């Protein structure tokens, strides 16, 4: 059975290779090849999953050792896989949601002449993400980690002829690279501390080292997670990443990429458990991002960017939960899975709306679409109910658990975190209701596009609606299914461990509080966007709104400090190199042997003779010295 693990990666990797190297003759079948191979990977995952269920909870981990990758004295990095319950959960999410997004893309990208390449990149994305979650050591994880970065670079910049897309892609890769510094240093620290960076040995040895070392490793891993999972302060790439085709957004936000950071932290639980200071930083990052994303999500009129803010915020929930330690690991992953369903559904729904509206993204130019796109409306609506935590739907269960866990952290910290998560839930209810109302309800505010085409909203083809329906099912039922009899908890506990914490209030109280903030959030949104007509042009808004529209000014900060500052630095360095370094070195040489004088006279055309004379001089010198020696 364990020999099947490599197949998980091999199928999409083969797809990527074939589609990207195959050339035009595969144009007609390319999307099918890509989809079938993604589905094949899912089937392999399902087979392994069934096999895993048949075994006892303690011996479910499968290992496959392929070969020794970098055998250097004292350093061992292998290409070896490990499939346990945590990896399995990700494998099913990645391949399952990934396959649905493939199917959706067949319709969505139908008119794009580079569709084959698009599917090649999608397959590459899946393969990289799968390597990331089934690697059995940090260095191989790093390969998947950067592979995801590459695939996202290619996909965000898929419409490369648009300068904005190319810039967004570059930005995503660069910001992620900053995070990669963290991963590199973490691996190097593990190597110098434990002599290895394979999961098993590292986690076993965490008890033998100092808390300081673990804290350092933990913080570096967090830096890496911030990059991939778009957490403050490395979140700035996520909004721009909307430049990619919509299925890419669904893939990045739901099944791959941004979930990687959460995986990294939960996987490294043993390190974080021994480093409370690092955990504290993790929860702070999670809490800040949770609010940051939610606030940004409230202000955006671009439907995809509003959803992007929402993703940031929801991942903030997961990071926060992961930072709580064993109290939160399971719920971080559970929310990750349910979020995978509804966020993929929401993005595909948004793509379906855009598809019917001449690629318009401004929600102020939507309105009243529910009559024209019934399937999109219903599936998007279910995703909406799930994300705000409507009772009985997926998000209700998973988010509620995180809020409870936050309180259960105990002490003042618990109260603060609990309140932040509740506040986040209220804002979530607000901005998602806003999206829903602006898009599907109210008056038509449609406007012709730049070329003067009137929009004719229509429902999308089956290849697009079927994946949306499937995801809607997941959005509705997954949470309940996982929570019934604590299924998900029992499934993951052997890997992540679990701790109930010290809840200061009862679970029922937390749920009630959650319901109250939910109603408040929805009510405010309705008062602002449901009761009154939505202006087709955005009002000026308060200072906070304007800042939030600009992603709370982080880009402006980056631009002034990093971009401008960097440009000045490199330009002045170019000048320094040309005049100072070159000049000083030549000058020093001149004082010793007239080198610069020769250099200056080069333009006169005597260059060759100088060189020859110098070389001749060297020859004479050699001969003379040898002769002297002989005599």
């Amino acid at each position: 059975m364990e020999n099947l693990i490599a197949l998980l990666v091999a199928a999409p990797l083969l797809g990527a290779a074939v589609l990207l190297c195959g050339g035009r003759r595969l144009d007609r079948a390319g999307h099918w090849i890509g989809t079938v191979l993604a589905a094949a990977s899912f089937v392999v995952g399902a087979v392994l999953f069934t096999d895993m269920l048949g075994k006892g909870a303690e011996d479910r981990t499968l290992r496959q050792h392929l070969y020794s990758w970098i055998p250097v004295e004292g350093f061992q990095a292998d290409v070896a896989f490990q499939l346990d319950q945590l990896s399995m959960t990700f494998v099913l999410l990645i391949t399952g949601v990934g396959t649905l997004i493939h199917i959706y893309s067949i319709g969505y990208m139908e008119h794009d002449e580079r569709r084959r390449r698009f599917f090649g990149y999608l397959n590459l994305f899946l393969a990289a993400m799968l390597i990331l979650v089934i690697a059995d050591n940090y260095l191989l994880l790093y390969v998947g980690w950067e592979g995801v970065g590459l695939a996202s670079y290619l996909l965000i910049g898929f419409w490369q002829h648009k300068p904005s897309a190319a810039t967004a892609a570059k930005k995503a890769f660069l910001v992620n690279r900053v995070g990669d510094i963290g991963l590199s240093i973490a691996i190097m620290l593990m190597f110098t501390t434990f002599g290895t960076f394979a999961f098993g040995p590292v986690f076993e040895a965490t008890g033998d080292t100092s808390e300081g070392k673990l804290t350092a490793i933990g913080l570096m891993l967090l830096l890496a997670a911030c990059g991939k999972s778009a957490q403050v302060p490395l979140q700035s790439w996520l909004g721009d990443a909307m430049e990619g085709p919509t299925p890419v957004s669904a893939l990045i936000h739901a099944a791959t990429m941004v979930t990687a950071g959460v995986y990294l932290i939960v996987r490294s639980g043993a390190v974080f458990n021994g480093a409370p200071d690092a955990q504290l930083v993790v929860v702070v990052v999670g809490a800040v991002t949770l609010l940051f994303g939610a606030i940004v999500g409230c202000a955006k009129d671009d439907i995809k960017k509003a959803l992007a803010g929402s993703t940031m915020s929801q991942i903030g929930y997961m990071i926060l939960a992961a930072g709580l330690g064993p109290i939160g690991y399971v719920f971080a992953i559970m929310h990750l899975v349910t979020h995978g369903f509804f966020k993929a559904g929401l993005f595909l729904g948004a793509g379906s709306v855009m598809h019917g509206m001449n690629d318009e993204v401004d929600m102020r130019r939507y309105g009243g679409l529910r009559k024209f796109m019934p399937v999109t409306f219903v599936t998007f609506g279910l995703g909406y109910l799930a994300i705000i935590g409507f009772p009985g739907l997926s998000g209700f269960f998973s988010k509620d658990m995180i809020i409870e866990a936050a309180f259960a952290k105990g002490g003042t910290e618990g109260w603060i975190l609990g309140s932040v998560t509740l506040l986040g839930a209220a804002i979530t209810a607000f901005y998602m209701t806003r999206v829903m109302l602006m898009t599907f309800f109210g008056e038509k505010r449609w406007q012709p596009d730049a070329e003067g085409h009137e929009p004719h909203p229509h429902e999308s083809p089956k290849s697009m609606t079927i994946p949306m329906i499937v995801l809607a099912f997941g959005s509705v039922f997954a949470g309940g299914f996982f929570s019934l009899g604590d299924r998900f908890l029992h499934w993951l506990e052997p890997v992540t461990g679990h701790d109930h914490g010290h809840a200061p209030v009862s679970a029922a109280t937390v749920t009630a509080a959650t319901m109250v903030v939910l109603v408040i959030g929805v009510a405010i949104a309705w008062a602002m966007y449901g009761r009154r007509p939505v202006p087709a042009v955005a009002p000026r808004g308060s200072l906070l709104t304007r800042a939030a529209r600009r992603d709370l000014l982080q880009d402006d900060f980056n631009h002034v400090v990093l971009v401008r500052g960097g440009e000045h630095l490199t330009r002045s360095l170019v000048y320094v190199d040309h005049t100072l370094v070159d000049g000083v070195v030549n000058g020093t040489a001149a004082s010793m042997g007239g080198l610069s004088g020769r250099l200056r006279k080069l333009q006169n055309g005597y260059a060759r003779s100088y060189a020859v004379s110098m070389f001749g001089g060297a020859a004479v010198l050699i001969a003379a010295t040898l002769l002297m020696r002989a005599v």
Partner: protein
Amino acid sequence: MSFPLLTATAALPAIGAIATAAVPAARRTAAKWLALAVSLATLVLAGIVFARFEPGGDRYQLTESHAWIKDFGVRYELGVDGIGVALLALTALLIPFVILAGWHDADVLETNSSRWRPTQGFFALILMVEAMVILSFVATDVFLFYILFEAMLIPMYFLIGGFGDRAHSGSDENAAAQRSYAAVKFLLYNLAGGLIMLAAVIGLYVVAGSFSLSEIAEARANGSLDMATSTERWLFLGFFFAFAVKAPLWPLHTWLPNAMGEATTPVAVLITAVVDKVGTFAMLRFCLQLFPEASKWATPVILVLALISIVYGALLAVGQRDIKRLIAYASISHFGFIVLGIFAMTSQGQSGATLYMVNHGLSTAALMLVAGFLITRRGSRLIADYGGVQKVAPVLAGTFLVGGLATLSLPGLAPFVSEFLVLVGAFSAYPVVGIIATVGIVLAALYVLVLYQRTMTGPVREGIGGMPDLKVRELAVALPLIALLIFLGVFPQPLTEVVNPAVQHTMHDVQKKDPQPEVEAAK
């Protein structure tokens, strides 16, 4: 006596060079094919050397030794170790691509001069460089090495000065002047380094009474040759200076952007991917082996210079407006990594540095040669003259991207393996140094992706419209290099296998042991 395989591997391209030069003026296409055939035959010989080399065997294998200048104990002494064999293989591998990529580089000179034979000369010079570089990787006599180290400047000088890049923004005269400046700057810098080395070589002979690497190293190891600390340091500095010019290390790097910018791209590849490697190779072989104590004494300063090279080279690459100069500065940054790995004096660092030499050769060749195909099409080296190439020439853009990704050390491609080893090796000995070096990871992504974005993406610019995609000859250059980058990224074992034992010898020479992991050290 066994067949002198190493001599044959070096002699073949040398003889081939003479034969190529002798091809009649009218038969220049034949000269090209002859040069290509010779380079391929050399590759076969190098392959045999690689295959015959036993990783677990003696330190130096396939040895040859003949008296040469008896009076001074100069011997023609050859032998190859794991580091030399890796670089020898790299050299033999790259030359056919260099020749193939430069297939038409000399054509333009044919039209206006009938007396000298530029095509024949161009390819003969390339083969001559190959012969000298190969011999320098296997020379185990210090004097023999020195002669080659200097002699290879001559063909390189003519390749840079005589066959410049035609894609020049200035007038023809201006271009000729800049080319000439670049060639002479290259020559003078390297000659200056060489002269100082010469003094050190003679000094070494005075002290040791021999030029034989193995004899001196042995005498040093068993204590029969005792050098005064100051003598050793001076001699070390003499050698190191020459190698640091060639490598090149900050602040002695300024000749490289000129030389790589003005030379045609295949020659630029020859400079940075092949000839410069002799510098870093020689640091490992001569500096560390002959002067272990002085090497350790100088380590702090050298590490700082390496760090400056890494960061400074990368920042300057970001600021370049000329594609070729950008790649040149990127190379300076990469040479910083190589030197860092060598002087970290850990197994991972030195294995990493050796792999880095090979991988940097492959990645720079891929990026630079494809950049050359691009530049030839548009007739400009300025980044600003490009835009939207991927729309009209997707294969060219794709191969360029892979070359770029290799340059930024993407995991899965060969350079990642070596860069990570260097980082880990440096970090385990000097944590702060390792951390600063990781900045290079981000900066490399910056200069590569900015270059790609400005040239390949966006709307199709004027002058790019009808650009043809890669042709068969060009694909024959780009695709095998990419395949190798992927193969060695996924499965570097064939290289690590030969390199590891050699690195252990060097570690033994400098009497350094790897730092123990903290957890084990505590037990």
